[in-house]
């Protein structure tokens, strides 16, 4: 009796396993499960039939049926998982993208090259101990000229090509130097400031002139400061900003608000001193004007010019940006063509 039961059960298992193998979807597996393990299923009928067996055979028969039941349940579950898995992979396959297609970007904005250069310049000077100050673009003649030792009729004043406001004794600052005056008027020595800002000249626009442009001005006044400090600070700046191998040349010049005055040239970045169009064949590029603060300037703000000395310098931001990025025409900075602006992404 037990033997025939065992045979029947084994046959059932083989049949079910064969059917599962060919089952091509979850519905078919479910149908097999119901037909085998359901309330009216083949195996369920065998289980029910155990009650009719003599008591001595029942335990063994029960064990047999349960073992087959476990085995079939496992086989069905395995097949179900199998089928579900391939279903998912079919879906995933259908969802595949061509990842080489263009992305959807939110379109973050870019920084203007003059801002980048200004920030980089300020960064170098901050590390030397300067802090940043600013002032108005509309200025008084006193701050822009008189306090800077440029009295009316001074040739330098004539050369500045100043833009004046109508009907007022005010002008658009021709340089950032009036910020020096404002800083000294409002503080006690020592002062160590850099002043970035927009300045104005009555120049007709061309490739190298714009009636508005930007400067950075620096001022360091305290006891015991000499031309030698100026030289260190500016040569150090060139090395930090343009590279440690860039040669510099420091030569005398003239500005009404510094005495002695000088200009700092640096080796041409394009030809490395060999001479090219950018440096007009000289191998040198004029970078900035500088000098020891004129005693008359210190006296104009009521500081003791015997006790305090200091240096000041100023340079054009556009010029530095043109050199750094190879911009051929100053007007490009103010045209604001996005095809220009977006080239500065990430710089």
């Amino acid at each position, binding site marked *: 009796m037990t033997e025939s039961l065992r045979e029947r059960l084994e046959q059932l298992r083989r049949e079910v396993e064969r059917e599962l193998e060919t089952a091509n979807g979850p519905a078919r597996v479910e149908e097999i499960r119901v037909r085998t393990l359901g309330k009216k299923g083949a195996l369920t009928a065998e289980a029910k039939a155990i009650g009719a067996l003599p008591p001595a055979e029942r335990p063994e028969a029960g064990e047999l049926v349960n073992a087959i039941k476990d085995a079939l349940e496992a086989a069905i579950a395995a097949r179900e998982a199998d089928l579900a898995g391939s279903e998912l992979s079919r879906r995933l396959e259908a969802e595949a993208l061509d990842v080489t297609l263009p992305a959807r970007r*939110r379109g973050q904005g870019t920084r203007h090259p003059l801002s980048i250069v200004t*920030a980089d310049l300020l960064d170098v000077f901050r590390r030397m*101990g300067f802090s940043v100050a600013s002032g108005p673009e509309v200025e008084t003649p006193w701050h822009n000229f008189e306090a800077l030792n440029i009295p009316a009729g001074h040739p330098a004043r004539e050369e500045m090509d100043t833009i004046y406001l109508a009907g007022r004794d005010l002008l658009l600052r021709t340089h950032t130097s009036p910020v020096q005056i404002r800083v000294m008027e409002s503080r006690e020595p020592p002062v*160590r400031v850099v002043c970035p800002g927009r300045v104005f000249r009555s120049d007709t626009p061309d490739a190298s002139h714009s009636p508005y442009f930007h400067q950075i001005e620096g001022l360091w006044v305290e006891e*015991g400061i000499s031309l030698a400090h100026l*030289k260190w600070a500016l040569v150090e700046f060139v090395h930090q900003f343009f590279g440690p191998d860039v040669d510099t040349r420091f030569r005398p010049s003239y500005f009404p608000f510094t*005495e002695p005055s000088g200009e700092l040239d640096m080796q041409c970045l394009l030809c490395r001193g060999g001479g090219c169009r950018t440096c007009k064949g000289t191998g040198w590029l004029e970078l900035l004007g500088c000098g020891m603060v004129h005693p008359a300037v210190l006296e104009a703000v009521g500081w003791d010019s015997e006790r305090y000395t200091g240096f000041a310098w100023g340079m054009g931001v556009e010029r530095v940006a043109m050199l750094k990025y190879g911009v051929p025409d100053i007007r490009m900075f103010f045209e604001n063509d996005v095809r220009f602006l977006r080239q500065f992404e990430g710089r």
Partner: protein
Amino acid sequence: MKVSYRWLATFFPAGAFDDLPAEELGRRLTAQGLAVDDVRPAFPTFEGVVLGRVIEAGPHPNADRLTLCSVEAGDGARQVVCGAPNVEVGAIYGYATVGSRLPGDRQIRRAKIRGVESLGMLCSAPELGLDALGGAEGIWPIAGARESDLGRDLRDVLGLDDAILEIDVTSNRGDALSHLGIARELQWIVGSDLSLPVVELEERGEPASARADVEIEDAEGCPRYFGRIIERIVVGTSPAWLQTRLVAVGQRPVSDVVDVTNHAMLELGQPLHPFDFERIAGGRIVVRRAKEGERFVTLDGRERALEPDITMICDSEKPVAVGGVMGGLDSEVGPGTTTVFLESAHFDPTRISRAVRRLGLPSEASTRFARGVDPELPELALDRAAAMIAALTGGTVAPGRVGDDRRAGSGRSRIELRSTRYEALIGVPVAPAEARAALEALGFGVEGGEGTLTVSVPSWRFDVCREADVIEEVARLEGYEIVPAIPLPTPPVAPAIEARPRFLERLSEAARASGFDEACTPSFVGQDALGKGSPIDNLVEIRNPISKADRFLRPFIATTLARAIGHNRKRGAERVKLFEIGHAFAVQGGEVVETERIGLAASGARFPAHWSRPDPEEYDFWDLKGDVEDVLAIVAGLSPRFLTGVRPWLHPGRQAEVEGPGGEAMGVCGEVHPAVAREWGIDERLFVAELDLSGLGTPADRGRVAEWSREPAVERDLALVVPTGDAAAGILAAVQEAGLEDLARVRVFDRYAGPQVPAGHYSLGLRLTFEADRTLTDEEVDEQVKRLLDRLREERNYEIR
């Protein structure tokens, strides 16, 4: 300024420049503070061209247009075929001998021309690359050449082997605007003293004072005035050597008299003016201020209106020149002039620059007077030029100068130079002997020794006024290169990044995060900055604008940004968002008010183009308002308020005034009025915002962070039917004011107007979120919602849809 190397050499003993080629001289001058921008040959190179005289000329046997010449160049006559129509027997020409090499790598060979042998060529000026010296027509006779020059190299005779130094003279160094001025700078470099040109003046005839006199009335404008009479002259062209000198430094030869005055100016720095003496009524010169309303015709034939601060040179009847600026047409020296009155005067720099500005008449002379000329120079320059004019024109110089000298005090200023001060300023000491040598080389007088030198300033160095100036003179001759580099003292506390720059940096980051590219736009705008016909009372006007159209300062950055948007849209950009942080200007209460602002402007697609969205959504007002809120939230944690605005240049129904939480005005945002946008060249919708930054700067102090509920939230949606005129902000405020104890958030989720709501009304969908520290029951929430609805019905007559 262009300076001739050969001309400079004439101030020094022969051989002084042997170790100083022009390039080296240029380098040394640059290192000394006279920046030499360029050194180049004065004239094109050629070789083998000598001076030759045509001693015979006859027709060519085989050609009508050719001339057969016999040319004597010192070593026997040679036959030369010449194609020029202007061969003159007896004239001296540049003769390119066989084997000579002309500019453009042209070589002259023995040749047969139409069957006749020709040994070389007679040259035209263009063939020698000397167009500026000779005419373009035919061969070029060398003016002033002598018998003894025959066979000499043309380059030597004319002095063509020269280099030109282009010197950028700083505005304080009026004294350096001449060869003499540069030569003074060279004494230190060359190591020997210069000598002034020797004046060989032969005076003859009736003394000048018998026929002319000078009176200065305007001593401020013209403290010194001298003149000489040169008579019996024949005005002609200058000799070739003089023309060459002038052309080399960029001056155009005119006539011998004019060329000599220019020569004296370029040599010594003193501008001179020659008058035709016959035209000086009464032989009398009066220097006075122009009269109010006086008019005068200058050399260039233009009549000019004068003003009293202009100095006029007059004769006994009328003005004859604008002093130091330009002569008059009537008294100009011309071909028929036989007597010249040569003026050499000193004019006040300030008055001259004012006159130049008034009259718009810059000239070589006025530029020099404006920068300052050595007040002691007039006599020397006058004598030098008078002698030269007499020599070149065959005239004679009448004995004596006439003149008037009203200079108050001519004492040289004396300045103390302390060696301690030198070291304090330069950072390195200088030996007193060294300082003395440098100053003396520049013409300063020096006394004293240990510790302090007393320096007397030469008359031409009017720019040197105080100790620092003298220190610079010594330092620049010593050379800045020898100044050591000494590190700056470290400040006690390294400066923090200051609040304001950091704020501006954050602001820029916030704007860029919202997709705005940073722009940099002009400060100048036209009167239509805010649309045609908009009032200009509050615009700040420029007196001397670059362009008449743009004569105001921008009242909004957004207006100049908008132009940049238009520029890009026209060039095909589908999405442009620009921002700028900068200054804007307005007149308020009669005063100019300058504020720091951020301007934002946007037009086109909301997002960058993407293939998944073939029809991109357009940027709109809500995007703009969101960008404004984002920027303010990021930089300052600020939630601004938006109120309906009424600015005429913005869309009447799509603009808002932006206020801070305390009700302070912060700016504006909105769509630009389409009519105004079109004026700016933009046909698409254009959005702008502008925020005044003066009130901002530090992130808002929002206190400690708050706890939040860990219990599930309960939501209720309401659709209120409200009159069209009721703004959303007011409704939201009313909801908040109802004071529901567990209401955490209110959000607008829908807005509807149409057939489902009564006319003149709209429906506003609100999602209320309730949160509490306990589990909220539906009953609790319902009770609160009911309370809200009752209140809205009672106070505002709102219904639920």
